[in-house]
């Protein structure tokens, strides 16, 4: 006892030294990382500032001019706003439809792809890397790329946006779904296999009941994201409320009441579907 205690005592200054040295290097590394980060942020900001048409300090003073114009014009014509909102409501429905359809199509494709690319569940285990790469690529494609190309072929309208968002959704959800699938128990599948169920039957009856709540919850989150995406794509050229916003916007002053009406509609829609989806997501994940 005494020996070990003594030995400990003899070692402790060395230990302490090593410990302080380690702490010091850590602090140094932390400091270096912090300095590099701050340098990157400031230089990046200055670079962005210099490559921008209007500078930051000039712009920050003007930041309330445009919202001010919109608000003051909307306030003047406040009686017209409800009528305008009714006028733009069909476009809003289209935007929500684009989001819903693309989430649905994307989720269905993601289900198939994720089942095909999960170890233990895959129909063709050798092709797992292929399906994974497919998901990676479709996840990496920004919606605007597909949308712009499809607008050239199909003309404007909701379908190019729908396909574009569905394409990205497939990859994004596919990755999340396959993570969920990996946690599914294999026992029901083995049971089904032992009674001679086909692959489709094993998946439908063995896997889907286990993972459906989590799938649904991710799909709802995607739906929320896709509403925003479909509004943005409308602005770039496909249908929906984004397109109306762009038109109202390009009319310039005098039509800002329309801009205000669309802003309000869009804001309310996004908040509404945010709340709805987070409510159901909590319910789904709480239940499972």
């Amino acid at each position, binding site marked *: 006892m005494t020996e070990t205690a003594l030995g400990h005592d003899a070692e402790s200054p060395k230990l302490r030294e090593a410990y302080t040295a380690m702490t010091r290097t*850590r602090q140094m590394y932390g400091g270096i990382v912090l300095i590099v980060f701050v340098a*990157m*942020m400031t230089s*990046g*900001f200055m*670079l*962005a*500032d210099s*490559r*921008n*048409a*209007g*500078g*930051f300090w000039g*712009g*920050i003073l*003007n*930041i309330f*001019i*445009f*919202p001010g114009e919109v608000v003051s014009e909307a306030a003047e014509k406040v009686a017209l706003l409800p009528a305008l909102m009714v006028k733009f409501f069909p476009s809003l429905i289209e935007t929500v*439809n684009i989001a*819903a*359809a693309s989430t*649905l199509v994307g989720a269905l494709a993601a289900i198939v792809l994720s089942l095909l690319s999960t170890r233990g569940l895959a129909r063709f285990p050798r092709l797992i890397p292929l399906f994974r790469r497919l998901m*990676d*690529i479709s*996840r*990496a*494609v*920004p*919606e*605007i*790329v597909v949308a*712009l*190309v499809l607008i*050239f*072929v*199909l*003309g404007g*309208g*909701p*379908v190019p946006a*729908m396909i574009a968002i569905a394409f*990205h959704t497939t990859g994004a959800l596919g990755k999340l779904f396959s993570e969920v699938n990996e946690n599914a128990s294999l026992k029901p599948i083995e049971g089904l296999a032992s009674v001679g169920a086909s692959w489709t039957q094993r998946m439908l009856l063995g896997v889907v009941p286990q993972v459906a709540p989590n799938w649904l919850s991710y799909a709802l989150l995607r739906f929320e994201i896709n509403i*925003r995406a479909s*509004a*943005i*794509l409308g*602005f*770039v050229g496909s249908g929906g409320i*984004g397109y109306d*916003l762009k038109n109202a*916007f390009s009319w310039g002053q005098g039509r800002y009441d329309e801009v205000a009406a669309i*802003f309000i509609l*869009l*804001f309310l829609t*996004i*908040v509404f579907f*945010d709340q709805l989806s987070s409510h159901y997501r909590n319910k789904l994940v709480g239940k499972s």
Partner: protein
Amino acid sequence: MTAIADIPALSRQKDAATALLARKRLVAFAAPVVILAYFVYLFFAFDIPDLLERARMDNAAVLVADSYSHKTHITHDNRTGGLSIAIEGENKGTYPEGMTPDFVTLTGESTARVVLTAGENAEIDGPTLRYTVPGYGTVTATVEGREILLETPDGAVPDWISAGSSRVTISGKGGRASVTRARTEVFRYSFGWELFWFTLDSPFYGKLPTELLRLALSGDRVVADKSNLAAIVHDVWNNAMWRHKDVLWAIFETVLMAFLGTMGAAIVALPLAFLAARNFTPVAAARFGVRRLFDFVRGVDGLIWTIILSRAFGPGPLTGSLAILLTDTGSFGKMFSEALENVDNKQIEGIASTGAKPLQRYRFGVIPQITPVLLSQVLYYLESNTRSATIIGAITGGGIGLLLTQAIITQKDWEEVAYYIILIIAMVMVMDWFSGWLRRRLIAGDESGR
């Protein structure tokens, strides 16, 4: 033996189980029916029949063909005379005097023979065009005063020739040709992205990689005042056709927008998140205010922020960064405050028991607990914002998004569009890989006791 129905408790359970099964069966049948009904509704709401009618499949064919091949224009100017050969008909792709691609033979001042693919060939003789198709014969089109005369072997006009009084277009299998009063033109498609490395005015054009390597290593200078390697790099970098310099700058701008926006949002959101967390801010009113601020910023959405900010700051990467920053401040604030509400109080108490001041308590008791959540969210958003920055760039005008929309609007540079698309996908995948790598490194580092 007692029947199950005799025991009231069990019978109730059995009823409940039957009801549950019936409900599940109903859902299993109803869900596909509802989805199908929704698709039928969409079929009419999105007006698919009309869309199919409007779809321009010829556009799709041009797009696909152009994305992996290029066309060379051999043009005779019928007003001023003179023959020119240009890749994609662009000024910067024009062959200099005395230089021709191997499928064109100049036979005189204003005459040329062009060997097309699929056994076809064309001959330009001043304003006259002779287009020979094997098994069919030679089509001749010529400009006569204000008219364009077309002569076919059998006198009839086949459907691959469109003939009008002011324009004749021949779309063969191996090339295309058109005759108007202004010019007689032959288009020949060739595989690949021509001039990708060097334009025609570069001394390195048409050299094989091995030759280039030898040139780079040799001391004999091709361009007088530069070493060969510097000249090669300079010519590629300043390629006027593909604009590598501008494209790489644009990619960099897009990544910069994502980086500044995401990191800026995290920096702004962290202190605000403390104000929104129940265990750090006892004042309910302040909490409520900050939370509604987060909701508002998130609800207004990137699109509207982009429009508002581009009014104030004009097009460019700064506008995009600030739009991302504003939107994500809301998302980060919400997530960070949730993470803060879940921190373990024991660690903070432990730090406090050593006599730490409030700031030290936050630094050593709270921050280490939330860093993994914080970092993984921030890095995940960094990747996703690279995609958003592409879209925002298309709206405000900055980065690769702008180049992409410009290239698509001109509707002819599809090989450039293909190039940009490949670059964008590569950029997002690299960012995805990088953020994943950093996340694994940093969070693993955290668990080992930092």
